[in-house]
């Protein structure tokens, strides 16, 4: 298992916090409880199941005041929440893998209706080949349909980000659904020390709930929700365009809001997480590796060792994957000459990792050529070890002087 290092708190303000030991799925459930949703809808699927079991138990024990709907499938899970959100509820669910695939029809629509639903994706590789283990293939497959998607590195970050996700989603400049992605197996079942925020302080952080001011199904404010638009000309297409443009604007606004919310979180609770992109030992680096999610812990250890060995390497971690934080990435990319990108999923169309593919787009905007290559590892539950990252570092180092290979490097193929 990768080491899940708890960030050293950059304590700016003391807060009343209980320290507990729990797995990532329980941490997510505790974060949900602290955010006080009105409704959760659940359907079990590995490796998400213990998360919704924890939520159900919190409600059963009276530690969480929410209505829980045990729906007959993920498609209805998200549909129940859409209805509840349109009636003014704060809403939450979690899923992964085939469940997310089954949910896709309402999933696509959630962003278009601008419903601030929060959903954890306890990431799982895509089937087939049959597998029930972790991987980012599920979340990556749905990265292009208007949900904000953030990836957590540690169990503590899972808890804190789950709470922050509600505030980001419900921000009036955003009004979009948010996925909090936590790596199946590594974060879902990884147990670590967690600081539990105080409920009253979370309440103060969250502020007043106001989720259906913009669209509602309410007899006191009768309106037709989602009437037909589009067509070949006239008012129809322009109406559609304005809705779509609004979604894109909300996505872009979320970059600023994610930063603001993380800053407020740091101020109130003393834990500071890089909101969009984390630069790790990048100053003085000639080249860097790029990571996503829980693999980053092992990668940082490898960077530390490489630095001690005199290699001029740093690390760029993406937290906010959707919308793609292009400006923050360009700022980091300006510091280096070569890049190796490690994905935990594949992009079938480009024969590389999806994050690498996205980076290629961002690098074009940099205005200078940065040699880069794609590494694919950690599929279907495989561990990406410090040793793997040393191989990544070595291969990336060669890019500074040698031509980049056309093929991706597949980690875990023979080890």
């Amino acid at each position: 298992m990768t080491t899940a290092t708890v960030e050293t708190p950059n304590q700016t303000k003391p807060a009343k916090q209980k320290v507990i030991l729990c797995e990532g799925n329980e941490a997510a459930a505790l974060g949900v409880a602290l955010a006080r949703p009105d409704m959760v809808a659940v359907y079990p699927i590995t490796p998400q199941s213990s998360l919704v079991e924890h939520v159900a138990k919190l409600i059963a024990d009276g530690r969480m005041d929410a209505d829980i709907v045990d729906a007959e499938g993920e498609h209805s899970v998200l549909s129940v929440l859409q209805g509840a959100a349109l009636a003014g509820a704060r809403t939450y669910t979690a899923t992964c893998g085939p469940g997310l695939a089954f949910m896709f029809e309402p999933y696509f629509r959630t962003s278009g209706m601008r419903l601030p639903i929060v959903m954890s994706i306890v990431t799982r590789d895509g089937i087939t080949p049959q597998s029930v283990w972790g991987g980012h293939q599920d979340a990556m497959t749905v990265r292009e349909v208007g949900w904000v998607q953030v990836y957590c590195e540690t169990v503590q970050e899972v808890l804190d980000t789950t709470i922050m996700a509600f505030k980001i989603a419900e921000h009036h400049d955003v009004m979009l659904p948010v996925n909090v992605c936590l790596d199946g197996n590594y974060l879902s079942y990884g147990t670590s020390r967690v600081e539990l925020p105080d409920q009253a302080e979370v309440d103060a952080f969250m502020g007043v709930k106001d989720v259906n001011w913009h669209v509602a199904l309410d007899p006191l404010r009768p309106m037709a929700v989602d009437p037909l638009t589009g067509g070949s000309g006239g008012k129809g297409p322009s109406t559609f365009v304005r809705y779509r443009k609004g979604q894109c604007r909300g996505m872009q606004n979320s970059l600023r809001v994610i930063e603001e919310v993380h800053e407020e979180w740091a101020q109130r609770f003393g834990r500071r997480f890089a909101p969009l992109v984390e630069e790790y030992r990048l100053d003085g680096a000639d080249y860097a590796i790029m990571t996503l999610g829980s693999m980053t812990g092992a990668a940082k250890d490898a960077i530390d060792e490489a630095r001690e060995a005199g290699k001029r390497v740093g690390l760029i971690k993406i937290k906010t994957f959707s919308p793609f934080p292009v400006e923050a990435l360009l700022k980091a990319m300006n510091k280096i000459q070569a890049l190796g990108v490690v994905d935990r999923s594949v992009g079938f169309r480009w024969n590389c990792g999806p994050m690498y593919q996205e980076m290629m787009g961002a690098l074009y905007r940099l205005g200078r050529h940065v040699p880069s290559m794609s590494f694919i590892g950690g599929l279907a539950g495989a561990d990406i070890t410090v040793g793997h990252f040393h191989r990544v570092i070595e291969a990336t180092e060669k890019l500074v002087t040698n031509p980049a290979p056309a093929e991706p490097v597949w980690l875990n193929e023979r080890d």
Partner: protein
Amino acid sequence: MGRSYNTIAFDAAKCDGCGDCMTACATAKTGSEDQTRSRIQIVGSADDGFELALCRQCGDPKCVTVCPAAALTKSTESGVIEWDAAKCVDCLLCTIGCAYASIALDAGTGHVAKCDTCDGAPACVPACPHDALTYITTARIYNEVGDWEDLFAPGLAGCQGCNTELLMRHTLRRVGPDTVLATPPGCVPGMGSVGFNGTTGTKIPVFHPLLTNTAAMLAGIKRQYKRVGREVNALAIAGDGGASDVGFQSLSGAAERNEQILFMVVDNEGYMNTGMQRSSCTPYGAWTSTTPIGKGSDGMPAQGKTQDAKNLPLIMVNHRCEYVATASTAYMEDLYDKLDKAIEASKVGFAYLHVYSPCTTGWRFPTDQNIEVARKAVETNFVMLWEYTPGAGLQFTRPVDDPLPVTEYLKAMGRFRHLSPDQISHIQGKVVENLAFVKQMVHQARA
């Protein structure tokens, strides 16, 4: 609004032929207890029961038409056919004109006599010891519902002759404005209920769910209002395709969880809005655009749908919903009774109303025949009208004792024009089988 009038209704099942009503009428009108002078006559019927000979105060009275002296007129005020002694020439033509033997010679006066409803307080009604007579307002729906607010826009873009508009207006009048309406893709939003480009056809909150998730979305809405202590009806008006096929999972799930929803299916037996394709509710043998007629291959001609329809309402009964009923727009009073019950049931749990709704366009019949086709479906037992509650089980609400042959229904529509004798006999056989199946459930409920 127009006018409708009161009338004296007779329930033959309650009458034991005692004659108290006739005595009361004779006393009130002649001062004698001579029952032959009563204007209400109870007579023996062919099945050893009793029939009623009493003026119906017809809307198109034949007695008035045949009267050469204009002595009989229908009052626009009360609706009563009034007789004017000063004008009557005692020709008795009216007694021949009346089909109900309800105007007759009164030997005591030498003139005809008929019921005048005792100026709105008929003496016969309270005299009946068995409540077989009631004084009721006719056209109850017209009178009661007509004054309620129509919650749909004046114009809707349905096909000519479609009765779904009728259904939508009646249903929304009844459920009222404290309702959230879901109209999944199909004819109902196709008619403009959710609207196009900023205009809407509905005066209450309305939305397009997906074709697949109507019941789930409504469940979320209803639960949230319940959570905050507000009473809001959650109503779906959905097509049969979205309910029985791709949306069945969410429907079944919501029913199993007993969500407090009223789910109405408008069953036009196919995907009519999108081009008349086959659904699992399409009956055997029917032409649709995906079960077309053709010469086929290997001597096996294509002759419409090759499977029988899924019986969705019976499947819903097996969810043990709070209320399940079938209804038809040819039987609006029955539909209204069921709507009332379904609304009440949906305050407790899942209520399901399955309304058979002929499609002029997709079933291929003249646009003025919609109600007739709906009626024929019931009169042949092709469609059965029943209701279910967990307490009372399954009960027929409009049993058809002497059904017409199913060909009377089939021949009314172009979609069955191609049927072979074998196919017709298959359909007739299924009608008999389905009736037997439902009767068995009714008997079980009674046992």
